[in-house]
């Protein structure tokens, strides 16, 4: 079973991601802030990360940047941000985040994106 880490500080959005992804038969682990996500990614192995950008303690960009600087191998990352300013998208590209989605997400589109990313790792 594919293991996905969802990093999201909003309880209801977390519930939405969790329900959709578990329905698709993925194993989902929850993380509610950037620092926690950073620590989890440091020790655990995941197939995919769903990463919010504006997070408490450490923002999504910093999580990826810090781990890359420490040469820790990251699974593929789907950033899901509510911040719609253009700068975020280019920043995500700079840091090397594979996909950047803007909230609100389209559920079926999101499921397809997740599937594509997980197939890519094979």
């Amino acid at each position, binding site marked *: 079973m594919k293991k996905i880490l969802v990093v999201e500080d*909003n309880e*209801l*959005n977390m*519930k*939405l991601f969790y*329900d*959709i992804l578990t*329905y698709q038969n993925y194993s989902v682990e929850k993380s509610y802030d950037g620092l926690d996500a950073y620590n989890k990614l440091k020790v655990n192995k995941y197939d995919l990360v769903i990463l919010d950008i*504006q997070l408490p303690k450490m923002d999504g960009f910093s999580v990826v940047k810090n781990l890359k600087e420490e040469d820790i191998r990251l699974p593929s990352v789907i950033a899901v941000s*509510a*911040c*719609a*300013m*253009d700068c975020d998208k280019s920043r995500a590209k700079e840091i090397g985040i594979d996909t950047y989605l*803007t*909230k*609100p*997400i*389209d*559920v*079926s589109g999101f499921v397809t994106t997740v599937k594509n990313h997980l197939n890519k790792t094979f």
Partner: protein
Amino acid sequence: MSDILNNTLNLIDDIINKSEVKNKNFYSHILNLMSSLYKNCSLGIFFCENTEYRLRAARKNKKNILSYKINPVMVKKIFKNNSLQEFKTVEDDLFYTNTIVQKLAIKESVFGFCILSTKDEITEEMKNSFCAVVNLISYKIKDYELNEVFKIQLKAMQDAIIEKDNAYEIIKKQHKKLQELDKTKSLFLANISHELRTPLNAIIGFSQALDSQIFGKLNDKQAEYIKDIQISSLHLLGMINEILDISKFEAHAMKFSPSEINPTQSIKEVVNILEPLYKNKNIKVEIKNDFEGLINADSQKFQQILYNLLSNAIKFTPNNGLIEIVSHKHDANYILKIKDNGIGIDKKYHSKIFKKFVHLNNIYTTTQSSTGLGLTITKELVKLHNGKITLESELNKGTTFIMEFKNITV
């Protein structure tokens, strides 16, 4: 003689430098000086002071200065005549028999008269030296006046500079304040956008999850309501996006990344997206394209223009209507028209329609809320592509939006 003239000059300089022109001392000095030039003579100087002519005269044998108002008739007489002329006055206790008058004047500007009056006969030499002194006094007075005018102007200029500097400081301060406010506004809008999108993500996500019926079957009413929730959520999202767009344009922060795109392809894609909307009203959409080449445009923004205009056309066209999308190339320009046979726009609104927050009251807009920013954004997007947008419309006949994009064909 030249010594006397030099002394006169120096004296006048002194008096003027002490800003004593037109005061008692000035007259007294001049009169005494001139009296000393001639034996047994009386001198008078009078200046135009506003509308009143006041004579100040000194006589050698009387040390005091006399000052009295001149008879206007006499003034007129003097003004009429050329300078340096002999005249006799009725108020003659001041003057002797031999009297001459010389204008205190530089060219046409007359500021007074000097009168020389003596018991003796006035010789040619006396006349000449009198004229010379009067001329000197004239120039000194003119110099002084110019000096005064210059001083006033200098003061005015200095004041203006100070005022300008102050104004500049104020503007600088206000500019800084505005920049801060603008930053606050942008930050606020970015934040509000974030804050609104977060719950909207849950609303849209959960309703899509319910709509997909993966967690259980819905009855007809539930399915209908969940669709209504989705439509309203998407409507809300559209408005959030419009507010964000307009604030980006206002902050000059709208990004523009052009590439070579196929406009026909873009048109077809947008028409496909809107298919459910126009099919629902049984509206026919025809694409009449006379241009097969590529254009330099920002793909996403070009489609946004099309989306805005087409969805508007669909909104304001009744059932069974017709919408035409016509495009062609003219020189290096790309012309795009979106024509509907809908309700049309009254002429009086044509100039207002691209302005912010404009709502036209009609049966369509009263049932559908909107930000009133759609066409403003569209106009800005067209401008971004070096284009301009105009409209032709007649009530109940339809509306055509015409865009001309300059030099964007490849």
